[in-house]
Every structure is written in structure tokens, then in C-alpha cells.
């Protein structure tokens, strides 16, 4: 008798690398799990890079669709998360260069009707600080902004940042340092 467990239909317990292999062969449900897993952090990344939620959603949507199309060629040299970060960063940078300078992040974003997400309670002063940070971020050089966001907002180690940006760790550290200095200066009045 074949021993069976209940069918693990949604695959939520599978690691990324298995889901990727399945999705590359056309398994859309596996790709849906990957989208669920990664969309939050990619959206956060894109919002920081672009400064407004609509552009960020478009960038992340494009990134996922591009990933779906290129999955059969993806050779697992980098982890899926790293690969998605790279695609998203590139997409954001392309969009940034085509559009006027971003507006400051609207940190009191209106939840969509019927959306279950809620904003953490925040004071007006906290909003002002985050707005100031977004403006300061927009002023940074591209490479510095990416490194800072990946380190401070996404929490990635240098090595992974280096993979995402296709540079070396030393370059990452240098950019991170300069970004920190610039942001400290820009946020001076808020100390």
C-alpha cells in the first residue's frame, strides 16, 4: 500500500529553488507562491527607489513578468531572491531615467478599499522624518541609493548586494559609506 499524505496542493512548504524549477517548466501555481513570498520586499525596495507607490507597483509587476518569461534560462547562479532584486533594481533605474524626479514618498498611503493591510500607527513627526528621508534618498547618486536601500531597508549582506549590483564588496562598502554620510548631512536638522 502506498503511504500518502494529504496532497500539499499549494506548495507553500517548498524552498525557492524547488519552486523555481517547477515554475520554469510551466507550473504557474509554483510561480504564484514565489510571487506571494517576494512581492512585499520587492515592493518596499521599489517604493524606496522610485518614491511613489504606483511606479513601484508597475516596476515590480514588470519584474515578475520578466522573471516568468526568463525562468527557463535562469541558471541558478544566484538565488532567486537575488535575481529578483537585480531585475527589480534594473527596472526601477530604467523607469527613473525616463521619468521626472520622483515626488516624496507619501507615507500616509491610503489603503485600497477592502484591503486588509493597515498602516502602523505613526505620529505626524514620524511621517515628516520619513518624508525627509525619501527626499534625501532621491538626491543620492544611483549606485549609492541602491546600496543603501539594500543594506538598511532590505537588510542584505554586502555579498548579496554585490551580486545584485554586479560589483565588488569593496565598491558596495564605499557607496554605502558615502550614502550614509550624505543622508546624515541631509537629515541633520532632524537629529
Amino acid at each position, binding site marked *: 500500500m502506498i503511504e500518502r499524505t494529504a496532497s500539499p496542493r499549494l506548495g507553500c512548504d517548498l524552498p525557492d529553488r524547488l519552486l523555481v524549477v517547477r515554475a520554469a517548466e*510551466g*507550473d504557474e501555481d509554483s510561480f504564484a507562491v514565489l510571487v506571494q513570498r517576494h512581492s512585499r520586499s520587492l515592493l518596499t525596495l521599489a517604493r524606496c527607489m522610485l518614491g511613489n507607490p504606483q511606479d513601484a507597483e508597475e516596476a515590480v509587476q514588470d519584474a515578475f513578468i520578466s522573471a516568468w518569461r526568463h525562468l*527557463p534560462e535562469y541558471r541558478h547562479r544566484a538565488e532567486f531572491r537575488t535575481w529578483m532584486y537585480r531585475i527589480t533594481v534594473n527596472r526601477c533605474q530604467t523607469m527613473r531615467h525616463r521619468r521626472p524626479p520622483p515626488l516624496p514618498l507619501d507615507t500616509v498611503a*491610503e489603503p485600497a478599499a477592502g484591503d486588509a*493591510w493597515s498602516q502602523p500607527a505613526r505620529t505626524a513627526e514620524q511621517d515628516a*522624518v520619513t518624508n525627509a528621508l525619501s527626499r534625501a534618498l532621491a538626491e543620492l547618486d544611483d549606485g549609492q541609493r541602491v546600496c543603501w536601500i539594500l543594506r*538598511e531597508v532590505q*537588510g542584505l*549582506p554586502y555579498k548579496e548586494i554585490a551580486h545584485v549590483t554586479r560589483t565588488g564588496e569593496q565598491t558596495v562598502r*564605499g557607496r554605502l559609506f558615502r550614502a550614509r554620510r550624505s543622508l546624515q548631512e541631509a537629515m541633520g536638522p532632524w537629529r
Partner: protein
Amino acid sequence: MALDDPHTRPPEPPGAEGPRNGSAAGDVPPFAGDEVLPCGRLLSRVWEQAWDAPPAADLHPVSCLHCREAVEGLATVNAAARALRDEDPPGLHALADRVMDVVRAEARFGRLLPLADPDWDLRIAESAAAKVLRQAADTVPGSRAATCRLIPEGNGTDVRVTMTLAAALDRPLPERVHQVRRSVLHSAGQDLGLTVTAVDITVADVLEPGPTPGPRLPTGGGA
């Protein structure tokens, strides 16, 4: 104190030769615009040590006023960064839906395989069949299917299945592979109606026990 900050740190030290004690000389030249604090430490290293590196044995920054002031100088920026990180993006669900709409419209079918009827032209897309057979493999405890390819064999309706698995190591692998093969063969006949001549199975990966972590924004420890 920043060293207690729950913000994540990478598992490895900042750089291959990054000086752990923050000496200004070190093996790596300071960065452009770097600054030497009155205590002799490089500002960049002090910051890295505070937020990017695992806790070091070096106690200097804990007690040094200059280092602490340097770290404090970035406190507001980093707090704002955490606020950005913790924001819930409202468009998440709608985004996932839009993505999957396009994905399903661009479905990849793979090759077409003959169903087991020699008289009529009845076929099934490889991706549709693979999905069912992967599920059959997944129902065997300690086994999860990775790749699943189907190839027509010969001139008739024969089909060969080639599969790779992730398997747990709590039981002998041959026994598990045997169970998976039986499950796949059963499903091929019962659920699909394919004439499968062989099921080639390779264990290509280890299945970790316990819940599988999806990547989430790290809150502490190594990323």
C-alpha cells in the same frame, strides 16, 4: 547602543580583509571622504562595525565617546529606514493578481504527449501532465518533485517520465524512490490515462525537515 540593534547583520565580516579593530591603517585603504575620529578609528569602520558586522570582541566602540557619538549621528536615519521597511504596501494583493493574470495568459504548455488510445488523436500538454505527476510524487512523505519531463517513446502512445526529487534523509533513498515511482505510475494510469514505459527518478536535492522559510525581511542575526 547600536551593537544591540536587532537590525540584521551579515554572517561574514564586512570585507575579506576588513580590519576588525577599526585601525586606520588596516589592509584596506579608507574610502573617499572617510574621516578619522579623534580616537584614531575610521568613521566608516565604526559605522560598519555598529550595523553591518557580527558583534566583535572589540570593546573600544562601546566605551569610546567619539565612536558612540559617530554612531548616534546616524540614529535618526536608521530609525527612518526601519520605518520605511515596516510600512505595509497597500497594493500587494492586487499586484499579485495582476501578475498571475499575465502569467496564466502566457502559459507554457510544453510538448504534447499522446494519451493511451491508439485509435484517436488525444493528447495532453506536458505541463498539465507534469503537474499531476508531481503531485503524485509529493504525496509520498519525505519527497517533493522538482523537474518532471515527459517524452514520447517509439511510434505508439508510449511515454517515458523523467523526474528529479528533493528527498528527506530519514529513510533509505531507494525505498523512497520506489514509493515515488509506484505513486507516479499509479497516477499516470489512474488520473491521466498515459502509457508510461519507465519512470526515471534522480534524487537531486535534500528536503530539509521543518517549515521552509520564505525570505522575509530579516530582523536579527545573519541574513
